[in-house]
């Protein structure tokens, strides 16, 4: 009889314990759910509030705050207008006034531009970025087209290519001691425009490779585009490379 009673008490005790555990688990689940819901709500309410970008300053929803910077003095309308004219003139002086050349190395495009009008948009080939190591001489060349602003310094017709050391090494040939052996005709096309540091805009025998980064740093152009560039760009033309 006692055994039955104690077993019954044990069962009751177990049931109570299980019930308590379930309650704890339930409460924990509810708390997690609430937290998840709150997190989801917070996430849903996070991000960016977008509005159309106004085309003019005067279309801004909030009024423009007064300029407090010391640089902005004097603040009278006449002085500001005069400053505006001075700055506009300074900006105009820095911009190229004549035709200029733009070279996009990443996309292998050469553009001929005047102010912000595109006169010519041509496929070209810029530097490959390859590194050539000469283990014997301990020399190293990086075939990049430089970035920056340059000017056309010299223009050549039917230029001869004076092959540099790397051109021989690349082909596994010995570098000639006689300088006359370095010259090669026809490799650079009809024209070459020299823009400094050993770099040229020139023609190519391999027009099928235009649009790819294949050169040793120079800019290669197709025959017709090279003729246009040569005709439109006098010595002194600015060359912008990016």
């Amino acid at each position, binding site marked *: 009889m006692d055994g039955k009673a104690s077993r019954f008490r044990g069962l009751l005790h177990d049931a109570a314990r299980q019930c308590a555990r379930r309650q704890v688990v339930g409460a924990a689940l509810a708390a997690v759910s609430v937290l998840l819901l709150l997190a989801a709500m917070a996430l849903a309410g996070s991000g960016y509030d977008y509005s159309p970008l106004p085309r003019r300053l005067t279309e801004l929803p909030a009024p423009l705050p007064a300029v407090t910077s010391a640089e902005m003095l004097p603040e009278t309308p006449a002085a500001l207008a005069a400053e505006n004219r001075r700055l506009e003139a300074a900006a105009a002086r820095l911009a190229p006034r004549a035709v200029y050349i733009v070279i996009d190395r990443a996309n292998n495009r050469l553009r001929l531009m005047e102010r*912000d009008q595109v006169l010519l948009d041509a496929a070209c080939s810029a530097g490959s970025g390859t590194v050539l190591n000469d283990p014997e001489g301990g020399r190293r060349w990086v075939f990049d087209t430089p970035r920056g602003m340059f000017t056309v310094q010299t223009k050549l017709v039917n230029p001869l290519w004076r092959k540099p050391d790397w051109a021989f090494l690349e082909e596994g040939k010995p570098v000639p001691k006689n300088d006359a052996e370095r010259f090669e005709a026809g490799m650079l096309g009809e024209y070459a425009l020299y823009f400094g540091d050993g770099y040229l805009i020139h023609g190519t025998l391999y027009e099928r490779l235009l649009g790819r980064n294949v050169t040793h740093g120079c800019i290669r152009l197709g025959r017709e585009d090279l003729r246009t560039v040569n005709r439109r760009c006098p010595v002194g033309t600015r060359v912008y490379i*990016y």
Partner: protein
Amino acid sequence: MPIRCPSALRQPRLTGRKVAALVACLLALQALPAAGGSVTGGDDAGSVAALAWRNEALRYRVELAAGDRYLLLLDPARELLLLTFRGAVLEQCPVRSAEVGQRRVSFISTAAPRWYGEGWSGGVVEPTRVFRRQEIVAPAPGSSEPVEVVVPPTPEEACPAPERFEIRFAGGLAVEIAAEETGEPAGGWRRALNGLRWSLRALAPRSRSASGGLLRIRLTIPPERLGALYRAMPDGVDFLVAPEP
């Protein structure tokens, strides 16, 4: 009794003094625009402030054009995105839509920094572009080994265009550039997933840590221009929303 015409009673008489005063007024009115330049109404505080901001933006452009820094210029008035260097336009791209977004965390909008007329520097392009540099060793002179000629990939193959990219600037601005929707029905799920991925990326802690990430300018451009712009964007580019001239 003579009848006088009522209109004759109201007819003003132009005396010499009145004429002189009128001329003086006209001269003064004519002189006003010359003194104020593009400011209409010298007392208009809004116009004065706008001119001051224009000057600040111009000063920034001149400063950059005098150095070796690339500037990405958003011209909302002309709906153009221009890449400039030393005052020269290198590339210009039409902008189909432009939006400015202010950060909101848990329904609370944060105070966004000013974006108009403000110069932003140190632009970092994401996703990162990977340019692999090939390294070769010159064969020994007289070597019988044939020189391997490899045709390099096109720029599109070497660095494919993402569906959108962004440029993060120091100080809390991100400029997101996406291709304009062409309205093609295919790829709806892909677009939705991509949108979700970008939303989550915008929420990522790094976007609001050092740079703040308080402000986003979202631009759409023609799809055929996106890849070229992504590949060509110089590292460390500056950004400016140009107030209209």
